[in-house]
């Protein structure tokens, strides 16, 4: 082939280099074009904008659990009784898959308000326990029927395939009995 002569005898030639450079540029170009396509599948601006929910806690009686919708998923809110809190704190020291003391699961001085995303950390089902008569599992918290995960009075995973505790979302007390879910709590002034 005439081509072979241009390559000279052994060693690299300018043509090899240009070929390599051309191909490399094509790969970079395709990559640069692929990114907008891939990124377009991530949550859009309007989806992200609709991401806070305000809740009035005043009507929730001690011992009562309610669900509100936040970012398309339920958030579990429980007005915990002193007995429930005591039960949760008592278990702080036992071994569990995702150890966390009860104090880290509520905001400071608000131990009665447990606020968690009600989505099982296994594969995303909604655990039972919000309605009277629901199964609450072996630890009196929540029970996920999909593959049998048991959560305790603090929403911590105790038994079953779920790897993590029910997540506590960012939320902020705007007044003593109103919260905004999806906003970071104000840092107490130092």
């Amino acid at each position, binding site marked *: 082939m005439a081509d072979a002569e241009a390559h000279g005898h052994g060693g690299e030639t300018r043509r090899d280099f240009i070929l390599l450079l051309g191909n490399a540029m094509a790969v970079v170009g395709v990559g640069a074009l692929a990114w907008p396509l891939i990124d377009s599948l*991530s*949550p859009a601006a309007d*989806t992200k904008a609709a991401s806070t929910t305000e809740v009035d806690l005043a009507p929730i009686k001690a011992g009562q659990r309610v669900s509100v919708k936040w970012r398309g998923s339920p958030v579990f809110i429980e007005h915990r009784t002193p007995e429930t809190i005591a039960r949760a704190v008592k278990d702080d020291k036992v071994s569990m898959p995702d150890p966390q003391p009860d104090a880290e699961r509520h905001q400071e001085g608000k131990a009665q308000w447990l606020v968690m995303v009600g989505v099982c950390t296994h594969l*995303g089902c909604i655990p039972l326990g919000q309605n009277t008569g629901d199964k609450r599992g072996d630890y009196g918290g929540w029970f996920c029927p999909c593959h049998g995960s048991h959560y305790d009075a603090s929403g911590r995973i105790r038994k079953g395939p779920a790897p993590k505790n029910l997540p506590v979302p960012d939320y902020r007390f705007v007044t003593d009995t109103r919260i905004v879910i999806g906003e970071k709590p104000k840092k107490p002034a130092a």
Partner: protein
Amino acid sequence: MSAMPTTPQPRWMRWVEQRLPIFSFVQHFNEYPTPKNLNYFWNFGSLAGITLVIMIVSGIVLAMHYTPHVDYAFDSVERIRRDVNHGWLLRSMHANGGAMFFIAVYIHVFRGLYYGSYKAPREIVWWMGIIILLLMMATAFMGYVLPWGQMSFWAAKVITNLFSAIPLVGEDITTWLWGGFTVDQPTLNRFYSLHYLLPFIIVGVVVVHIWSLHTVKSGNPLGIDVKSPKDTIPFHPYYTVKDMFGLGVFLLIWSIFVFFAPDFMGHPDNYIPADSQVTPPHIVPEWYFLPFYAILRATPDILFINAKLAGVIAMFGSILLLFFLPWLDSSKVRSANYRPAYRVAFWILVVDCIVLGFCGANPPEGAWLHISRAATAWYFFHFLILVPIIARVETPKPLPFSISEPVVKPAVARA
């Protein structure tokens, strides 16, 4: 391409052939030399192909009536069933067709396992087949989400959440898959787009599957190579007619579901519109995913891997290991008819897969959990340990000399 047909050709045919060798291409299919001893298990490939065509045709028409929106999807499918002319038929054909497709393909795959179709020189045929199986699973899963019933929604939620098991980037991947914070409008919309696209990708892979097959030629129940033209017959008319007969039986069974039991294989909860705030008490996938669902739920913590990730790895691994089968099974004898030990192992595997199916349909508690674990362990034991060992220690039965021999010899002996 081969030479022009020997029969005299009209001039226009020759004119076309010189520019586009379409007639010799068709002739290649007609004359494709096929072993003369194929049994009915060799029908399922063409059945799957025809099913794919029926799915695409019925799907395209359904798509003309379907609305991919969380507020209208459920109602649009109900409208298809009640108001669209013959919509009930289209929907029933398509929904039951998904299941019939899996019946055909599963039998096709087990045929391959029994007769050693994955062995040289058919490895690439086998690999293309596994890719088709994976694509089919993705397609059927996304199709099942489209009617937006309770089972649709929660299937979407649970299956997309499988990806959250991936360390570090898992959560980001699920958010990206959803296009939001949970399964919602963006998810339904993209699933619809992909459900439309993937079947055409499957068509492409099927072309490669058959291209490779026609290069290495079909296997046969004896598992020995074709020795002479005496061992083969032309595909047309011998196998076209046999395939048509098989198709007739297959369509009859399909029709029983379509006309007399359209919801037999479905789950009643999928007639409840999707509710993102309430999970049905007992969620199960379609029957053709049950064995995999059982493996997912049965897997416990393994060493430092938590149960969630281990389950996901085991579930995908159960299919991916099929890619390695050509090496795991090093026996040169293809057909299980001549492999007494492998044959027993094969039938135990069949039973094991059926047991896994029942496990997937029941809650993973009590005895079911133990059975699921044992059956899952056996599945992996079969492929990763038993098959390689049998291949090394088994003494196969003597193989016939040629495909014609067992047929011709006894006839001669009788004469």
